[in-house]
């Protein structure tokens, strides 16, 4: 399923400065095709995460619209949009994204179970193994390092088989070896399972895994 951003922008008001608003993201159109890895690079504060949140249905754009298949995300009510995000999108946010009261395995299984889908603990375990944290399945998030938590979030997104994976700095806390593991897994999701993968990253290495690459600077996106 294709995720399409049609001329979306995000504008914030500010109290000081010459203009009374500024663009975090300038109007941009982007299509995330199934089976492709799209990488977006750029400096901190350039608007990458804002764009990702708009694509994920988490932040309504000031202008434009986001379409997943034939459904416009921001015309949906909260319940429908939440369910669509749960079933179709796999979001890997920056930083810690674990529910502290659940174990690592329970965290990975959580999205599917929220809406009563059958949990495939075997597959979840396989992803944890593939990302090198299989032995931590029963650990609580508080016992994990930043890098291990990032890998847990990647395993969580991959094990749900979403149509689109939106990953924000997925390798931020990882060493080279684990970065390669994580990026390979995400590329496998696109190339082997036909998912659309969108990577926001600082890592120049990620370009090696990209089918398409963009750069963002001061809210303006351009082909890299």
């Amino acid at each position: 399923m294709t995720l399409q951003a049609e001329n979306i922008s995000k504008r914030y008001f500010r109290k000081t400065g010459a203009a009374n608003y500024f663009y975090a993201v300038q109007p941009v159109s982007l299509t995330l095709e199934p089976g492709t890895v799209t990488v977006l690079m750029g400096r901190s504060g350039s608007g990458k995460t804002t764009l990702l949140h708009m694509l994920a249905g988490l932040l309504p754009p000031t202008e434009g619209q986001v379409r997943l298949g034939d459904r416009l995300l921001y015309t949906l009510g909260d319940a429908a949009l939440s369910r669509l995000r749960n079933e179709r999108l796999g979001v890997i946010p920056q930083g810690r994204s674990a529910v502290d009261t659940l174990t690592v395995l329970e965290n990975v299984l959580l999205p599917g179970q929220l809406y009563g889908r059958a949990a495939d603990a075997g597959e979840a375990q396989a992803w944890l193994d593939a990302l090198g944290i299989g032995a931590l399945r029963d650990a609580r998030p508080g016992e994990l390092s930043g890098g291990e938590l990032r890998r847990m979030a990647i395993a969580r997104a991959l094990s749900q088989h979403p149509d689109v994976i939106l990953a924000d700095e997925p390798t931020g806390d990882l060493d080279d070896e684990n970065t390669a593991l994580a990026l390979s897994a995400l590329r496998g999701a696109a190339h082997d399972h036909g998912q659309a993968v969108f990577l926001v990253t600082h890592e120049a290495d990620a370009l090696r895994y990209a089918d398409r690459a963009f750069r963002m600077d001061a809210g303006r996106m351009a082909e890299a």
Partner: protein
Amino acid sequence: MSIFSLSRKNLTRKPGRAAVLTLLIAFLSLAVFGGSVVVLSLRQGLASLEARLGADIIVVPSSAQSKVSFQNMFLQGTTGAFYMDVSSLDRALEVEGVEKAAPQTFLASLKADCCSIKIQVIGIDPAADFTVQPWIARSYSRELGDMDVAVGCKVEAEVGEIIRIYDQRCKVVARLEATGTGLDTAVYCNMDTMRALLAAAEEKGISHKITSDSEDSISAIYIKVQDGYDIDAVNSRLNGHIRKATAVRTRSMITGVSDSLAGISRTVTLLIAAVWALAFIILLLAFVLIIRERTREFAVLRLLGTSRRMLGRMVLLESALCSLLGGVIGIGVAALAVFPFSTLIETSLNLPYLRPALGVILLLAAGTLALAVIIGALASAGAAWRLSRVDPGTALREEN
């Protein structure tokens, strides 16, 4: 994983957070349930006292120091005996406005070899009595025979047992319902039995005779005033007509008790209200802290596809589980504190105290639980609303 099991895990795996909420609710429930049981028991006791007195006026000998000794007999079960001539009964019946007059005779047994237990014995005249017999009838359908006694619920004697009073063998034929008053420590017999007991007491040197030529003495006369007559006026007439006796309106006895009860009720209600207000504020603060602590967790859940409604449900469910558990603990602790020590409470308050029926207690417990859940839900509603409206994008960025 359903929202219910997620809520359950949130509570069991963050026990500190859950414990704070549970303890607060337990404290609230303890105050409400315990306080309400005490107040209800006092009200029940007062109602029982009114029912047992059952008369508009009681005439007692002036030697009974007016109502004080008499009131103590009712409220504390202290034994006592005071007598007036039986002719006082006829004098009372002569007074205009008196519809019924029922005599009672009191005798205190001794803590000695001649008596099984130290108790207050009250003799009634079945033909005239209109206060004690309806009470006895609830436990014993026949009339009290000679040397038969009906015992109050706090008297240590079983039905069928023989108790000795001044070496007279009396058979316990009934055990009476609790009244929450001093009457629970008394035994009741007919006037013939009482005459035999008085004679036996006389032999032991306990004199009840007012004059040497009078065989019959009575201790109190219960008066029912005819409809349409002013009770105060009849009371005055009785005071003027019967020598060496004092007529006391029962209401004046009950008013003292009622005033004390009203004072205690007010104090308990104020205490409960203060505890609830304080605990509600603490609960609100606790939820404000929880909002801060859990913003990122909720942003993550939103990111994973949890709707606002589901998140709201989760917070309310957690609050309901804590409230239910806290309610049960609070009610349990209150029950352990109030029920086994009801005699102590009765003695220290010096008021009639009668535990409400089991059904009422269960209803009160259910009401307290419902109140605990409602208060928990109200306190958490703001948190549920705010957390469900967390903008996940902003929350995740702010926390990074």
